[in-house]
């Protein structure tokens, strides 16, 4: 028994690359995930987030609130009008829009709950939750202080007949006084902000979409990687050499592998979605053409990735370890494992380089945002582009790396 263990240790240690990988890879992955997800749970100040703001009131108070929000660290206010904002949320382009409704100024001065609405995308609930936590104290403080200030000013102007100059002086002192009170906000009530989720239908849960789309893409990547590695298996078993002897065109070998990857992953994806439909009730019937286009483009992009893996590797062992690393990293970054919106903004920008991102986004577009075909197709278009680029790169590398047999 011990003898076997010692022998295996010896064998393990002879492969320096494998040793390095088995120790460095976990460290690398931990760091990566820490960067990807860590930022989301720390204070928001490092991470400016965009918030649309529709000011329908346009009074001195609402403008002052807007300035105040604008001055908040980590918050980037984008002025919009209400309808435009809600449309953007609906189409998944923004997470939410804060609406200062008409009567805000009046409500503040008469000390009643002011009309503040946050329309948001429930698929990004987590993100909105974080935003809300940052927003509510500021709103509360502003509203409370402003109400109190206005009340004092009103009382002074009602009870004393003073000339303009003195009045201005007193007002300035009042301002100064309240300014010193900032930060010590009064009682907190969450209901200062009325939250309205923006959704068209309530049938599909975003969790379900995330589950099927996220897992689907990752699994497809694993299965195409296996097909890619079969090229190297053929190299090792000698059948690739035999193929080179036949009149079969060299790029035909690669395209053959691409085709089989495409066919198998298309079938796999169809099965996954039909299963989710039958068992979990994801209504795939709402837009069959979009689904098929997304399935096909996802399968194509993944297949391109599969042949690329084969083309950059020297041996089957190498493809196998390389594919695990690349797929894990890409899936983590691209939103397969954890929804993208809880990652820091810069991570989300990196995500666009992954197959997962466009694919998952496309499925959200179909089932969550219920976008029309032409908007869903944008994702498919990018995926097909990725697939083409990967295939071209692969066929160039393939000749250099794989077809060298002797």
């Amino acid at each position, binding site marked *: 028994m011990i003898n076997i263990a010692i022998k295996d240790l010896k064998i393990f240690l002879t492969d320096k690359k494998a040793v390095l990988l088995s120790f460095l890879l976990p460290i690398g992955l931990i760091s990566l995930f820490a960067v990807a997800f860590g930022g989301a749970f720390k204070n928001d100040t490092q991470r400016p987030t965009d918030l649309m703001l529709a000011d329908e009131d346009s009074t001195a108070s609402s403008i002052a609130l807007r300035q105040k929000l604008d001055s908040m660290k980590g918050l980037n206010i984008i002025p919009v009008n209400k309808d435009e904002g809600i449309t953007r949320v609906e189409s998944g382009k923004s997470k939410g829009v804060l609406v200062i409704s008409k009567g805000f100024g009046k409500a503040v001065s008469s000390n009643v709950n002011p009309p503040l609405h946050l329309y948001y995308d429930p698929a990004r609930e987590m993100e909105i939750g974080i935003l809300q936590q940052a927003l509510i104290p500021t709103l509360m403080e502003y509203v409370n202080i402003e109400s109190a200030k206005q009340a004092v000013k009103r009382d002074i102007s009602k009870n004393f007949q003073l000339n303009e100059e003195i009045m201005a002086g007193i007002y300035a002192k009042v301002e100064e006084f309240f300014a010193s009170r900032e930060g010590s906000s009064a009682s907190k009530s969450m209901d200062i902000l009325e939250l309205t989720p923006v959704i068209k239908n309530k049938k599909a849960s975003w969790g379900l979409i995330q589950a099927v789309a996220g897992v689907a893409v990752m699994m497809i990547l694993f299965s195409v990687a296996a097909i890619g590695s079969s090229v190297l298996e053929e190299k090792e*078993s*000698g*059948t690739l*050499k*035999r*193929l*080179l*002897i*036949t*009149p*079969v065109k060299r790029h035909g070998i690669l395209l053959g592998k691409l085709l089989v990857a495409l066919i198998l992953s298309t079938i796999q994806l169809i099965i996954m979605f039909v299963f989710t439909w039958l068992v979990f009730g994801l209504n795939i019937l709402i837009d069959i053409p979009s689904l098929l286009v997304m399935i096909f483009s996802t399968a194509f992009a993944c297949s391109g990735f599969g042949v690329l893996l084969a083309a950059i590797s020297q041996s089957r062992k190498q493809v196998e370890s390389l594919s695990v690393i690349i797929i894990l990293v890409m899936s983590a970054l691209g939103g397969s494992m954890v929804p993208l919106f809880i990652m820091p903004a810069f991570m989300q920008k990196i995500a666009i380089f992954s197959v997962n991102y466009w694919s998952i986004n496309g499925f959200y577009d179909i089932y969550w945002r219920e976008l029309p075909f032409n908007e869903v197709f944008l994702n498919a278009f990018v995926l097909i582009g990725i697939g083409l680029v990967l295939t071209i790169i692969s066929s160039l590398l393939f000749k250099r790396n794989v077809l060298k*047999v*002797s």
Partner: protein
Amino acid sequence: MIIVRNLSKSFGSITALKEVSLEIRKGEFYGLLGPNGAGKTTFINILSSVVSADSGSIFVDGEEMDMHTTEIKKKIGVVPQEIALYEDLSAHDNLLFWGKNYGIPAAELKQNVEQLLHITSLENRKNDKVAHFSGGMKRRLNLACALVHKPDIVFMDEPTVGIDPQSRNKIYDILQNLQKEGITTIYTTHYMEEAEKLCNRIGIIDHGQIIAEGTLQQLRKMDQSTESISIQFEKLMGEQKKELVEVFGETTIVNGDTCVISTYQLDLKLAEIISKIDRIGLNITNIDFKKKSLETLFLNLTGKKLRE
């Protein structure tokens, strides 16, 4: 039919082939005999356009060959040294797959496949996975896959390594049939007997160079060593033994009633030997020739044994 001129190939500092030139005529069965690492596989790989040569040229039917000439490729069948089959497919499906790569019409291909399964005695196992085949069966299938498109030219790289005599004889039968059909063959081996049995002409390769070439007889002549004849007599007396040594020289060995006579060019001197024995007045009961083999020639040419 096949002309090879000054073919050279190096892998880094290793010279696998050095200025190899050959001419192989139509219908010829050419044997390339050489020890491990001589450059046989490299030569076949270049001829089958899998590996490119550093320099030199190859002409097939008067047409210069490069890596992409599909027309030439269609005429050639190659049996690789390693077994290159899809283990998870059946024998039948393997043959079908390789045949399809040559664009043979379906009906014709079907016929070829059945015929080859018959010839290689794999008929009753044709639907079994290759993974479950014995080494000899795999070898036969490996050979059949190279013939499925009915090539005019066949390159075979040690097609009989590691199999039992029965499977080997089966393969010899197939090869001799190919020869009858007039198929041009280049056959590499390090088995002397194979080269002697199968080939019209033999090239001996060592360290990437052809060091001798010719028919079996021509090669034998090149061998400067002696041949011997072993003669068994009815009864040898002491006197007669002495006389034999006197007549046939110092190298003659007498052992019991047997006498081994060694000489150059035994074929020319045989009649003379018999008449001398007759003159001594001895009765012969049996004669055995110890012919020169390629083995000794090889030893003479390279200073080493073929299989070492």
